[in-house]
Each structure stands twice: as structure tokens, then as C-alpha cells.
């Protein structure tokens, strides 16, 4: 069983939590409509409305949408699937191309062990059956960035089959109303990536970069068990976390390491499935959710207006926020699949079937890989909940943001403050600052930049830990701590202690001084005292505020309240 997981936001900010009525039924509505009106909240736990949809007309059943996914994850490996070329993002064009990658005649594929291991580990993490024997096939089509005229893939017998991926979505407005959904993983296959074509329309020419040609991909086929963009995006996000935890793919969508195609159809419950369309080129989870929801509504509208759905490939235009038919590549392709004759069947072993005396370099032992599996995200979340007593949704946020969990754990390691306090500071203050600071820049880049490159983060885990320690031993007040944090964020190289000293933020440690300040405040504001005595309970807060102001924020409000109450009653 998977731990509950909080879905991340589809549309507005990634940091926000969204709640969408992601049931299996869809109603009529504008395809461009209200599925994406996320609003940014002050707190990281922002709210989003349900999909606002029109009520169905009486007597007609609602529409049900069916969504399946085909996901390509680039394998994190030093070299390509069948050649020794290095794998590196953003290298100069055509600088990482071996003779095989350029399909020079006479070159042959040699399977990369690391890629096979990555596929097995991914398969194990998704509870797949690992086929002890799998085969490679050639898939033929002519395209300028496919030098051999075929792609080597696993069409007949893939390396892993019949797995499942669990993810959690909210069904109601309360965080506790999360349910776990499961999408079946039909298969995982190893295949080659293609090169890249750059079309220069001005000079009407196409430039080819083969750096990507031949990089190992895991193609994961997720069965059509999802029913809206949010579910699909959440499932993809969970998969992304799993791949990253395994280290089998960096799964960075922006860099194309994770690419998603969605198959979408709508039908009335109880009736056969509708004709499906395929939406391609979805290079962010946000667009994935948007594109799917748009496409669902488009299909519903089309059918409601008496139209029909064509079995076609569409692409998502992120500027217009809609899907458009792709230029048809000369009708339907027949890929003329054929066994790859240059690669013998891929045989995998377990500890029981391992041939005796086999060269460990030449065989792969599934059991050995299973032992090496790292902690998977769902287990990490369970552990966070149990170990630190945090809410499940908080554990979700910690995992969903790149580097945030590591940041949190580093703070925890160095501070004496309560884990709950740390959670709150990391999720509200730290994350809130990140958000506010970087409105114009995409969050992912910011997060990567700030968190992955340690020193570049304005507030280091140690600084926050030190700050929380000061707070914990009541050296500063909570508001003063916020002030210190702001100073830290400016990144002037000062430690929290230095800032506290410079700004004179340390709590008034002298009880006599506080007594005096309280007394003089009471004397200076007889009207407020009167107000309080007449029975307005809120008047005490005003007095506390006045005292705090007089202490320049250096007194603890609870302590002030205590002194004031004592003085007033005496």
C-alpha cells in the first residue's frame, strides 16, 4: 500500500496544493474554461476550487473520460544504449556521436549493461514482472534524425510487464480526504532515442543533431486507468519521483528526459470506449494536465454537437492552451517491425537461476538489483510522517520539490528545535520566500538552482538550524526570528547570531525591565485599560502590541501577556 500522497498543483504554482473533483465523470463546459484558474495563496498550502462545470441536462448521463499514458524516460547513464558515446545534455551539436550512432554501415549494436539494470530496477520499483528473456526489434520509419532508418526497441517481448503505480489525489476539500489510486503499468521497454531535427524555415533546411541519437530510453506504457489531467499529472509526478529516487532517470521534463504522450477518449459510462486521440509533445506536467483536460472537453463538445472524434495525433499548443491536429505524416505508418538480428535475446537471472561459474560482468542478477533498491518515495513519506509526526500532505510537499527533503533533513540534523517547528519553517517560511522571490522565473529552475547547488541558496540549512535553535531556547521571539530570516535571505554572509546582535533582536532577558515597560504602557494608555475592564477581551492584544513595540519586538508575546495580566489584576 502506498502512503497517501498529495497531488501537486496543475496550473498555478507548483508549490500550491490543489483540490480538484477528479472523479471519473466530466460535464459539459468550456474546454478552455475553468480547469486551470489556480490562484496563488500566501501560504504554501493554497486552495484551488473544484472544476466548475455546468450541470448536466436532465436525463443524459455524464461523460466519462479515459486517459492512458506513454512515457519516455531517458536513462541516466554515462553512455548510450548501444554505443560508447557519452551522454550529456546541451553538448555542442554532433559532438557525442559514435560511428554506430551515425549508422555507418557495418557498425553493430552492443547493449549497455547500465541501461538494462536501470530498466530492471524501474520495473522492480513498479512491481512489474521482470521477463527473464526479452527481445529487441527494429521499428522502421524514415526520418532525418533517425540515421539507421529504424529504431531498436522491444516490441514483442519487453523487459518488464504488468506492474502498477500508486499515487494519491484529493477527493474533497479536507487534506485528510486523500485517496490512493493505482494505474496499471502495461510494460517497460528499452529503446533508442532519436536525434533532434531543427527546422530552419527561413532557409528551408533542416539541421540534424545526433547527440541524442541512441541514448537509452525506458518506454513506460500506463494503462488507460486515469480519467483527467490531474490524475495523469499526479501519476507522472509520482513516477518522476520514483525514477529520481532510483537514479534510473533524471526525469527532468524541461530537458526532455521525461516525455509524455497521452491517449484520450470519452464515452458514456456503460457504453463502449470512444475513439481516442493521442496528444504529443507534452513537456511539462502542467501542460500535460491542461492538454488532457482541454482535449477531454473538446471531445465532449464535439460529440455533443453531433461531431465525431478522429483517431489522430494532436499536439498541445501551450501558448493557445489548446490541442491542434498534427500534420499527418503521409497517413498511417506501418513500422514493419522485425527482430533485431544483431542482438541475441536479453537473458536475466535470479539467484536461483544464475548459471554456475558465470562471469558476473556478463550476467545480470535481478535479486541483487532488488537488494540495491533505494527507499522509494512512498516509503520516505511514511517515514517522515512516523518519524517527525508531520501531516501526510506535508511529507508530500517535501518530496515534490526538488532538493527540499534534503534541505529539511539537513536542518533537522543540526537543530534542537522540534521537527514540527522545522517542518513549519521549511514549508511555510522558506518555501514562501522562494515563491515570492521568483515570480517571473519558472519554479523548477529556481528550486534546482537554490537547492541543488547548496551554496547558492540564500539560506543554508545550517543557518536555518541555528536560527531555529535561537528560537528554541527563547533567545529571540518568533517575530524576531522572521526578521532574522529576512536578513538571512538577503544573503550578506552573516550568521543568525550576528544578525540578532546587530539588530538587537534578542529577547528582553531582564524581567524587571519588562515589568517596567508593561507598567508604563498601562499608565500611558488608560483608555485601553478601561476598554479591557469593560469586558473587551481583545483589548489585551492591543496592550501586548504596544509593549512589543516598546521592546522593539524583543519580548515574547506570551511573557508580555503574563506580566500585563498580573499587573492588571493586582
Amino acid at each position: 500500500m502506498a502512503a497517501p500522497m498529495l497531488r501537486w498543483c496543475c496550473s498555478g504554482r507548483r508549490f500550491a496544493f490543489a483540490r480538484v473533483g477528479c472523479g471519473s465523470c466530466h460535464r459539459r463546459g468550456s474546454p478552455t474554461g475553468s480547469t486551470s484558474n489556480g490562484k496563488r495563496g500566501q501560504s504554501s498550502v493554497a486552495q484551488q476550487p473544484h472544476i466548475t462545470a455546468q450541470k448536466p441536462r436532465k436525463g443524459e448521463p455524464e461523460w466519462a473520460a479515459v486517459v492512458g499514458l506513454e512515457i519516455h524516460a531517458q536513462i541516466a547513464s554515462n553512455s548510450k544504449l548501444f554505443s560508447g558515446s557519452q551522454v550529456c545534455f546541451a553538448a555542442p551539436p554532433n559532438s557525442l556521436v559514435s560511428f554506430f550512432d551515425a549508422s555507418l554501415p557495418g557498425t553493430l549494436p552492443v547493449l549497455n549493461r547500465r541501461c538494462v539494470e536501470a530498466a530492471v530496477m524501474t520495473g522492480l520499483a513498479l512491481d512489474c514482472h521482470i521477463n527473464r528473456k526479452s527481445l529487441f526489434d527494429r521499428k522502421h520509419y524514415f526520418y532525418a534524425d533517425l540515421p539507421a532508418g529504424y529504431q531498436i526497441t522491444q516490441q514483442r517481448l519487453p523487459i518488464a510487464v504488468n506492474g502498477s503505480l500508486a499515487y494519491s489525489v484529493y477527493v474533497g476539500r479536507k487534506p485528510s480526504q486523500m485517496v490512493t489510486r493505482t494505474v496499471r503499468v502495461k510494460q517497460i521497454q528499452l529503446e533508442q532515442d532519436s536525434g533532434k531535427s531543427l527546422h530552419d524555415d527561413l532557409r528551408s533546411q533542416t539541421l540534424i543533431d545526433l547527440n541524442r541519437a541512441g541514448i537509452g530510453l525506458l518506454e513506460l506504457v500506463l494503462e488507460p486507468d486515469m480519467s483527467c489531467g490531474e490524475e495523469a499529472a499526479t501519476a507522472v509526478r509520482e513516477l518522476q519521483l520514483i525514477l529520481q529516487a532510483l537514479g534510473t532517470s533524471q526525469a527532468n521534463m524541461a530537458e526532455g528526459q521525461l516525455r509524455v504522450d497521452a491517449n484520450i477518449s470519452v464515452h458514456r459510462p456503460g457504453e463502449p470506449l470512444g475513439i481516442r486521440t493521442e496528444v504529443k509533445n507534452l513537456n511539462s506536467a502542467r501542460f500535460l494536465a491542461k492538454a488532457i483536460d482541454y482535449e477531454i472537453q473538446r471531445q465532449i463538445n464535439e460529440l455533443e454537437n453531433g461531431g465525431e472524434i478522429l483517431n489522430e495525433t494532436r499536439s498541445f499548443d501551450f501558448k493557445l492552451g489548446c490541442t491542434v491536429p498534427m500534420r499527418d505524416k503521409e497517413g498511417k505508418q506501418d513500422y514493419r517491425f522485425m527482430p533485431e538480428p544483431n542482438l541475441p535475446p536479453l537473458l536475466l537471472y535470479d539467484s536461483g537461476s544464475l548459471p554456475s561459474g558465470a562471469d558476473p560482468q556478463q550476467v545480470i542478477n535481478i535479486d541483487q538489483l532488488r537488494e540495491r533498491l533505494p527507499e522509494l518515495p512512498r516509503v520516505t513519506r511514511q517515514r517522515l510522517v512516523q518519524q517527525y509526526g508531520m501531516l501526510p500532505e506535508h511529507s508530500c510537499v517535501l518530496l515534490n520539490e526538488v532538493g527540499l527533503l534534503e534541505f529539511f533533513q539537513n536542518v533537522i540534523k543540526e537543530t534542537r528545535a522540534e521537527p514540527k517547528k522545522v517542518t513549519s519553517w521549511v514549508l511555510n517560511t522558506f518555501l514562501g520566500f522562494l515563491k515570492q522571490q521568483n515570480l517571473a522565473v519558472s519554479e523548477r529552475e529556481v528550486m534546482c538552482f537554490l537547492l541543488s547547488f547548496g551554496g547558492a541558496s540564500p539560506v543554508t540549512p545550517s543557518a536555518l538550524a541555528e536560527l531555529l535553535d535561537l528560537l528554541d531556547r527563547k533567545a529571540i521571539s518568533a517575530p524576531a526570528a522572521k526578521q532574522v530570516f529576512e536578513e538571512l535571505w538577503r544573503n550578506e554572509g552573516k550568521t543568525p547570531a550576528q544578525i540578532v546582535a546587530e539588530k538587537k533582536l534578542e529577547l528582553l532577558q531582564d524581567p524587571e525591565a519588562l515589568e517596567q515597560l508593561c507598567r508604563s504602557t498601562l499608565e500611558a494608555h488608560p483608555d485601553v485599560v478601561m476598554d479591557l475592564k469593560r469586558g473587551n477581551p481583545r483589548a489585551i492584544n492591543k496592550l501586548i502590541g504596544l509593549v512589543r513595540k516598546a521592546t522593539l519586538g524583543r519580548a515574547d508575546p506570551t511573557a508580555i501577556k503574563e506580566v500585563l495580566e498580573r499587573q492588571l489584576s493586582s
Partner: protein
Amino acid sequence: MQVIMVSVALKQGQITPTELCQRCLSLIKKTKFLNAYITVSEEVALKQAEESEKRYKKGHSLGDLDGIPIAVKDNFSTSGIETTCASNMLKGYVPPYNATVVQKLLDQGALLMGKTNLDEFAMGSGSTDGIFGPVKNPWSYSKQYREKRKQNSHSENEDSNWLITGGSSGGSAAAVSAFTCFAALGSDTGGSTRNPAAHCGVVGLKPSYGLVSRHGLIPLVNSMDVPGILTRCVDDAATVLGVLAGHDPKDSTTIQDPVKPFTLPSLTDVSKLCIGIPKEYLTPELSSEVQSLWSKAANLFESEGAKVTEVSLPHTSYSIVCYHVLCTSEVASNMARFDGLEYGHRCDSDVSTEAMYAATRREGFNDVVRGRILSGNFFLLKENYENYFVKAQKVRRLIANDFVNVFNSGVDVLLTPTTLSEAVPYTEFIKEDNRTRSAQDDIFTQAVNMAGLPAVSVPMALSSQGLPIGLQFIGRAFCDQQLLTVAKWFEKQVQFPVIQLQELMDDCSSVFENEKLASVSLK
């Protein structure tokens, strides 16, 4: 003269690698009209000879092949030397790397004389269908053949009636047969090494699939291609195989087990041998002369005490059609890379990428290649795949099992004809199209490729016309040594005559009929 004996002569300094190289180069020039070579790598060879000479002078040669002139079929990649596959598509293509087999020969100090002619992309059985024109069989100009022709009172112009070499490794077979090199690499997909070997009176070895690396061999049918070895005697074939055999990390279909170097024993007793004679190979098209030599060979084994037994390979008759489907399918796939983008020919049209592909491929491939691509793509279509490709694969399995059954029944080696008849004149040969010819000519050789077995064609005798006829021995998978041992015994028994080309190259008889060399090395 055996390679091993030349090697001894080189070691003893009776001849230098440079002398040997120059004599071969001069023979290549004299036999240029045979059209055996597409590219003569004179400079490379002379430089290699110079290096070899230095090694010999220092007394540490690299091995038996050091200083030995060799030739390589022009479908093996050679670094820095044009590799054309006799096709417009690859005219001007200079590979940046050596095929593993080429590299292994060079590592042994062999001298690369040049790249030999073939049918375009090795598709053919005559060496007549390449863009550089047909290869002429050296036996057309032999004393043996000419005398017979005079006797048979043919008065027509001799030059117009030259014979084909067979193919597709005809250039390599002719190069070895005409003494322009000591050994040559061919490739063998359905008989392309054994067929021209038989027609040119040389030994043609197709090793077991997986024993020799295909890396760098421009493929015809990956699942059947094997680098072939053409030599003038069985021992030489064994010497070259010893160098080439073994695992290649660049070819995942090569065997993992290490291959030990070997020398062939001289068999004196064949009484423990069991020779199988497949009855299905006795076809109506088989010429009576070949048939009688075949039975003569069987009798020879029997008379020397071997057990000779008739065996059955019941699925043989399906081999041609099965091969056609599998071959064209893989061809369609393998040829997909020739699109004019990365290398090779590119048309002038730049209307669109698709138009460029179409024109490039139309201009680059001949009709034979285009025809096979079309058929192959038809067989691979989704609607046809089960009915053709899958069925052909099943038949292939049956054909392979035929051999397994025969060998399990106790047969050590099969003895069959290599070709239906001796070499025919070019004018005769081109009366049929390439497809018909390939289907007919591969009949005895093709099934071996489908089963991955080793086979060798050994010249047995001259026909009544004075032309060589070879017989084929087929061995168990990876029992190449045993196969060659039997072939060597047979070779010794039949004493096939040396081709007499004196008239042709009157003044260069020295190298190969070099009495001085022979006498010294025999001491």
C-alpha cells in the same frame, strides 16, 4: 605455395615482403582486365611491406601472415580506403574504421593489396551486377581451358566468351586464383564465398556463424552473413581462420568462449569418419559431370574406410523461398540507412527531405537492390508479417533442425556439390535475371547459412571443358577445425591441378612457380 611456406621463406630472407608485394602488384596490373579489384591500395601495401620488412630484419615477425599479401572484398570497411559495395550509393565513401577482421589481418602484418569486386551490396551469384562491371574468371584464360576449347573446335572470338567467377565474392576468388594475393576475405550469406571459390578453383570457407566477427562487414542479411575466407589451399584457410576467429566485443553475436590457435592435423585414417550424402541435393538441374565427381568423392571416402551414408534433409526444397523472404526482409531493413544524409550518395534535389530520399535511393541502388528492398518491405508489412516473415522463420528452424538431426545420427561431415555446374560464359549467365540466377546457384549453399553451420568448398577436378569443379563439406556448428581437417585430407587425395596462366602473364611466373623458393623451403 602455402602461406606457411612463404612465411618460412620470408623468415629465412629468401624473399622480402616488399619483393612479394611488388610482384603481386605487378600481377594485379597484368590481370587488370579480370576486373577483380575495385581499389588497388598500392601505397598502403608498399608501406605495410616496408614495416613488415623491418620486423623480419629485427627477427620478430607478427605471425604467419606477416608480409603476406591479402585482398578484401569491397563490402568490408577499411579505414581510409574507399569502400563501395560496388554501388553508386557508397561510391566515394571512405570508412573511418576497419572491420574487425581487417584489423586482425593488419595486426598480423598482412599486406592489404586492395578491395575486390562484387555484386552490388553482395546481392548476386555471378559478380556481374556491380557498378564497376563484371569480374572475369581467370580460368577463361588458362591453358587448361583454352586447350580444351581448341579441341572442341570453338572458333569464335575467345575474349567475348569469358566465364563468370560466380559470386558475390567473385573479385576475391579471382584475385586468389590469379595469384595476385595469397588469401582474400569474402562474405557468405547464401553461398557468396563458396560459389565463386568452386568456379575459380580455390578453397572457399564459410566459418560457423558467430565464430568470426561481422563488425565492419556491410551487411546483407545479419542473421546469415559470415566473413568468408578464400585461399589456394585448405591449410591457408585454417591459418587465416585461426587469426580471425574469436569473440569480438563489437559483435554481440560472436561466441564468448576463447578460440585457441590451431594447426590442422594431417589425417591418415578416415575409417572413424562418417560422411553423410544428403539425398535431396541430387537435383535434376545438377550437371552430370558434377554428379559423377560427387559420387567419385563419396567412393573415395568409402574406399579409404570411411562410413558413407545417405541422409535426408527433408526441408531442403523450401530453402530457396524461405531464404528469399528472410533475405529481402533484412535487406529492406539494412538498406534503410542509405538515405543520403550522413554519408554516401546524395541526389541534387532539395525540394523536400522525402523527395531527396526517393531520388537518392533511386540513383544509388541498382534494380536488384531496389527489387529486394521492395519485396522485403512487402513481407514486413503488418498484414503480411505472420504469413511471410514468421512462416519463413519457422521454416528456417526446420531446415536448421534437419542438420541437427543428421549430425545427431552420427554423421560427422556432409559431402555435397557446391554448384550445379562449372562456371558458365558471361553471355550465357546474363540470359537469366539476377533473382533467378541467385535462386538456382545458391541451392546447395544457402541452407548452411540458415543453420549457421561451417562449410567449405574444395576444388576437386577439372571438367571436360577444363574448368574447376568444387565440392562442399558441411560440418557441425563450431566444429570448423574438424571440417577443415576432413577437407585437407580430401584436398590431398584429389590433387587438384594448378591453374596455368603462363601465357597470360608470361613473365611473371616467378612468384608462384618460383622453384628457388619451393626448393629452399623444402629443405
